[in-house]
């Protein structure tokens, strides 16, 4: 596997502009002769598809929901970062870059992150012009809030629904192109395979989720913007349909999978309430601006109501441990701190399986200082959501929160152009591994999705197309498509025919328990080895004993689920393997053996690299390749938020 980062030479701040100036162009009259497939209609996919169509390409865009507007970007709450320095608090592209590199615990590619910080300002311009109703000050100018891991206020937001509004903006641009006929939108289509012709990505295989038709599509280039794989944990803040299928199937066709063990556990989610729970709900990190996190000092107080515990018996543990960042410590650090106090038996809330897994997020001081109306205006919808789910009023009593799986930094390996190691396969948004290293800072995934879609892929995909030229797309009658179609059909038939005893969901739950236990907030060698054995056994059992009811020629939710779970069962093992080999702690990857005074201990000599896995065939051990991270301008330092 060849891993060339293609990072341009020259000073960091000039790399992107110099590079852009060198990228090849396609003549406007020729653009409509090229066909681009975009899989995904989230921020990255919608933005890319709309931009390609505006440039004049023919675009086909796919998503599994019934409308592109429902991609899971819609659920992002808190905000989007941009280095506008509207608050005059000393922000700049360079500072945003430094925060992101540090937040990622020095495991991201320097040049990509710098480009992200540079393009961030354009994103806000673009979105405002589209009519995204960002929060404003009385003077009519844009408002900002603070987010974890930063000491400046650079987060733009639309109440607690920033992702919704940004996605509706991108969706409106995409819709305009669909109306003009330049984008063909295929909703309720699930990508089940990637097709390579002569080593280049030249199409995909999809299943029409309503008719069951399995179909091949040919294109000049394929762009995957299919989101993250957090649902490998079963319970996560992702939507039910979020999957690893698209990227994992590409992996099986030769695309390198980078850093699968880098997953983010978000500190502020509503705690688990029971066995039948299907998802976890995030409470935006922005709440930590005004909420204070605490647990009782004494485990004996844990069963009491919060109001019965006097001030001096409370431990505001984030403020105590990280005085300069306090409640706004980065996610991985805040999550681990919450786990620690609960492991000490000082958690609060109801007992689930004999443990109290929750900490308080208390707004009483902020309500006293600012008034309930202000808090309602800032977070009203989050408080409502909390009440719907828990039946508790957070204006009157503290919220209970606990960490939950939220985001995946790992993803398909891409070079500086966002091209994978398979020529013609580009990857944007959460699906790639590129910008967040071992931990993502709040409000920077929306930024990355839109930067990739609006401001990077249009240039770099054009360069690729100019390079391959108008050689003509293969017909879907070519043997490569036929073979891929057959594989997908066979697999579907196999899933339907096993007719065993256990539901696909029960396997998913079982897998989730294994990876949460052994590859969640804290990982050990022994635990990971055990997890790998258990996942293998579970996978074997799945293929013997799964029961998929329904039929393939119609809407078949269990068949869809079974296919996704089958891929998670393979991918889960890869994730644990990656975690096992990375013998250090960094960002969201915390190996218990590697710590110093309770904080993550990186090993820059051995692990300042991206781990990229190459598939070797069914049942064979994948091969680990590395891309060394060369930092030209930043010094590796120990990440401290104290």
């Amino acid at each position, binding site marked *: 596997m060849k891993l060339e980062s293609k990072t341009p030479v020259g000073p960091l701040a000039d790399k992107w502009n110099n590079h852009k100036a060198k990228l090849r162009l396609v003549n406007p009259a020729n653009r409509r002769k090229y066909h681009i497939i975009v899989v995904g209609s989230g921020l990255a996919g919608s933005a890319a598809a709309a931009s390609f169509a505006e440039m004049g390409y023919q675009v086909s865009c796919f998503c599994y929901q019934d409308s592109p507007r429902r991609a899971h970007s819609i*659920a992002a709450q808190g905000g989007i970062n941009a280095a506008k320095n509207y608050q005059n608090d000393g922000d700049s592209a360079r500072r945003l870059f430094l925060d992101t590199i540090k937040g990622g615990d020095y495991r991201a590619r320097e040049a990509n992150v710098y480009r992200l910080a540079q393009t961030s300002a354009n994103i806000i311009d673009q979105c405002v012009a589209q009519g995204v109703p960002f929060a404003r000050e009385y003077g009519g100018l844009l408002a900002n809030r603070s987010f974890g891991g930063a000491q400046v206020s650079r987060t733009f937001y639309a109440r607690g629904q920033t992702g919704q509004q940004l996605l509706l903006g991108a969706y409106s641009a995409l819709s305009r192109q669909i109306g003009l006929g330049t984008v063909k939108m295929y909703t309720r289509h699930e990508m089940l395979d990637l097709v390579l012709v002569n080593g280049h990505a030249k199409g995909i295989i999809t299943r029409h989720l309503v008719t069951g038709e399995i179909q091949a599509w040919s294109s000049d280039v394929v762009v995957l913007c299919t989101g993250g794989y957090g649902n490998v944990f079963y319970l996560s803040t992702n939507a039910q349909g979020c999957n690893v299928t698209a990227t994992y199937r590409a992996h099986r066709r030769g695309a390198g999978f980078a850093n699968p063990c880098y997953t983010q556990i978000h500190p502020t989610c509503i705690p688990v309430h029971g066995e039948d729970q299907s998802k976890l*709900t995030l409470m935006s990190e922005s709440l930590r601006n005004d909420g204070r996190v605490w647990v009782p000092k004494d485990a004996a107080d844990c069963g009491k109501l919060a109001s019965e515990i006097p001030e001096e018996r409370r431990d505001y543990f984030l403020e105590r441990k990280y005085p300069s960042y306090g409640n706004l410590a980065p996610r991985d650090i805040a999550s681990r701190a919450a786990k620690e106090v609960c492991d000490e038996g000082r958690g609060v809330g109801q007992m689930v399986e004999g443990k109290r897994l929750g900490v308080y997020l208390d707004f009483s001081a902020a309500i006293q200082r600012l008034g309930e109306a202000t808090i309602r205006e800032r977070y009203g919808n989050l408080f409502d*959501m909390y009440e719907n789910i828990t039946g508790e009023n957070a204006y009157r009593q503290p919220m209970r929160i606990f960490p939950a799986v939220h985001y995946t930094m790992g993803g398909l390996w891409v070079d500086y152009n966002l091209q994978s190691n398979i020529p013609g396969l580009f990857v944007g948004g959460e699906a790639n591994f590129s910008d967040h290293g071992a931990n993502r800072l709040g409000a920077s995934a929306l930024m990355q999705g839109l930067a990739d879609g609006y401001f990077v892929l249009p240039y770099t995909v054009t360069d690729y197309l100019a390079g391959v030229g108008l050689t003509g797309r293969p017909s879907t009658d070519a043997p490569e498509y036929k073979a891929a179609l057959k594989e997908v059909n066979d697999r579907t038939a196999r899933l339907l025919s096993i007719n065993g005893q256990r539901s696909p969901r029960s396997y998913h739950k079982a897998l989730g328990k294994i990876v949460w236990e052994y590859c969640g907030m804290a990982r050990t060698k022994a635990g990971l080895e055990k997890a790998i054995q258990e996942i293998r056994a579970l996978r074997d059992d799945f293929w013997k004993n799964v029961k998929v*009811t329904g039929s393939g020629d119609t809407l078949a939710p269990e068949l869809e689920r079974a296919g996704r779970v089958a891929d998670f069962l393979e991918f889960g093992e890869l994730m644990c393997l990656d975690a096992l080999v990375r013998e250090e702690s960094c960002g969201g990857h915390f190996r218990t053996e590697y710590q110093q005074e309770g904080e993550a201990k990186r090993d820059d000599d051995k692990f300042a690299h991206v781990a990229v896995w190459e598939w070797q065939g069914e049942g064979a051990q994948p091969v680990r390749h590395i891309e060394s991270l060369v930092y030209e301008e930043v010094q590796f330092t120990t990440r401290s938020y104290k």
Partner: protein
Amino acid sequence: MVTASGQNSHGHEVTLALKLRVWRQRKGQAGHFEEHALAAVPTSASFLEMMDMLNEQLIKEGKETFAFDHDCREGICGMCSMTINGMPHGPLPGVTTCQLHMRNFRDGETITVEPWRARAFPVLKDLVVDRSGFDKVIQAGGFITVRTGSAPEANNIPVPKGVADEAMDAAECIGCGACVASCKNGSAMLFVGAKINHLNILPQGQAERDRRTLAMVKTMDEAGFGNCTNYGECQAHCPKSITLDVIAKLNRDYLRARVKEFFSSTGKPSKGGD
């Protein structure tokens, strides 16, 4: 004592026994209700988690599960769409099906679950309907034309806070279609009105204001949505509390655009926007 979090004072989970009448409809066939029972549904479960439990039970019995639309399960994607006891999204105001929790039901209750019922939303299977008409309306004009990279500096366009807030109120629509499903006429005026209110009041949206309004209304009619005769049911069932005044505003903007269209087609010069 039962606490809100669904445990009684001994820390045990409170559960409900339920009877369910669920709509079953297969390709090319007429639909009918199927009856099922669930013995122990925790009150802390969401409505869709209750449906998951039913489906898991059906799998155990070797039967086909019920297909239903859902994705985010946190009230924002607009995908879930069940008519529960005759009410789109169920009995609680301001919540989607996925955010409805079982503590709002009684032990021993019979719950009827149907798909959205509307001419413009044909049933695809069981509880799943085709809402692509909504996308078509947006494709016709629910946008501000701005090519990637062509936007001016964001703070060059100040927007008074009141206007931004009003636009945001309307922009909260999740495109679920409960308004259509609750309306006897199957009208989409609340949905279209919400988008018109979002875009037509912003300074950025002025240039295309009339075109947008005319094109969206025309497409709405073509997509088979009915007329609005002011029943007001849409507002009562909208999970995002979009209110009827977006319809009044849509009517005003539509009239304005039609009048301008008329005068410009009779050769009289039209005045600019207001």
